[in-house]
């Protein structure tokens, strides 16, 4: 019962009312963006410092390539800087910059003639490690780099529509509303895809003998 109650507490934090911390972050970002819009381009650096990790991680997870992720991160902030005047003050900055990052990933994929990271499992170091080692529980692997590689690999196998939502919702911790702002999809579609994506991810992990 204690675990169930813990679940209830978590439920209220995910889609619940906006917290004061989030509000103050929103105000901080709004102040900075207003400065940039008024011509203080140096203020933009603080936005870069604040969000480059998230943007990089999103790009890395969507492309599966470090070099591409770096280029996309740079391109994302350049696009944001060029279009900062179109940003509506009072709105959260994170979904806006993530949407730009997502579009930059799509554009880059089109340019390079690929739509998603094609990392074959055959010959992958992760697969070899998994095959040769006994199956430890996920708790034992939490601090293990191997766990991340396995999960990222499994997420990489998902259909593109599911993958990006799994990344945004589960890995980046965004809400359904924020996911909707980034992808332009309706909330109901996102919920449905998230559910399907999780099912597919479970299937992949179970096929690999993974238990949680």
């Amino acid at each position: 019962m204690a675990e169930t109650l813990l679940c209830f507490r978590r439920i209220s934090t995910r889609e619940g009312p906006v917290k004061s911390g989030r509000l103050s972050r929103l105000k901080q970002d709004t102040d900075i963006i207003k400065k940039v819009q008024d011509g203080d381009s140096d203020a933009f650096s603080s936005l870069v410092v604040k969000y480059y990790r998230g943007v990089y991680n999103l790009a890395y997870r969507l492309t599966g390539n470090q070099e591409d992720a770096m280029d996309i991160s740079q391109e994302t902030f350049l696009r944001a800087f060029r279009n900062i005047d179109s940003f509506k003050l009072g709105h959260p900055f994170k979904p806006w910059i993530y949407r730009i990052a997502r579009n930059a990933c799509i554009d880059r994929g089109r340019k390079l003639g690929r739509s998603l990271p094609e990392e074959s499992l055959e010959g992958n170091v992760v697969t070899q490690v998994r095959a040769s080692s006994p199956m430890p529980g996920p708790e034992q692997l939490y601090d293990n780099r191997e766990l991340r590689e396995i999960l990222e690999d499994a997420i990489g196998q998902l259909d593109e529509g599911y993958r990006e939502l799994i990344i945004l919702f589960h890995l980046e911790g965004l809400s359904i509303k924020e996911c909707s702002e980034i992808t332009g999809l309706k909330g109901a579609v996102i919920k449905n895809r998230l559910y399907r994506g999780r099912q597919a991810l479970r299937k992949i992990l179970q096929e690999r003998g993974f238990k949680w």
Partner: protein
Amino acid sequence: MVTSKLPLDRKGTEVDRVGSAGCPGQNEIEGYFYGYLSPLRTRLVKYHVEKCAQCQKRLEEIERFDDLLSNIPLEEPPPELCSRIIESVQNEQSAKDAKWRQLLRPLLGEDVFSVRVRWAASIVLLLLNFLFYRRFSLSGGLLGPKTYILGWADLRFIYDQLVSGDLWANLKAVLVALRADGLFALEIITDVLPGWFPNVLILAGVVVVVWVAHLVVCRSEVRRT
């Protein structure tokens, strides 16, 4: 590509009923866990879960799976990435500034070329001012009511005088008279030159003085920089 293929109901929502009859489906219980069910459905599922041991287990399983996903550590970006992004943004800003500076340099620049452009622009403005400046004072003023200081007809007159050589002859006559009779010769001016001409000279003098002062300031600024 791995996709999930589950049966759909009439509304297109996936139906995945597991557990005993009356238990919420997997989609619903996951929606409950992640907090995106409607308030009514949330209450119903919560009520059910509190009493159903099987659903509690399902919920715990969902939580463990969520922990697994949400505990994936972030990939630490290369250390140079942040400075690289900031540098590229600053370059972008510099390029934007340089573009505007390049466009406005002839008018706002501080080099010799810019001063010359301003010089030429001032002359053009001066001419336009003479041509099209309309009198703004009350009627009966210096130039008469609603007249131009210098109109196309006046320009035509000056042109004719220049071409025929009369202007030079008249000016010479004025100079000779000034030498011979001093201020008395001023009367001659009114006879040989149009009535507006002294006014134009006064106005032009004022404009030229202001313009020369501006030029001197500009040049001294250029020297200082």
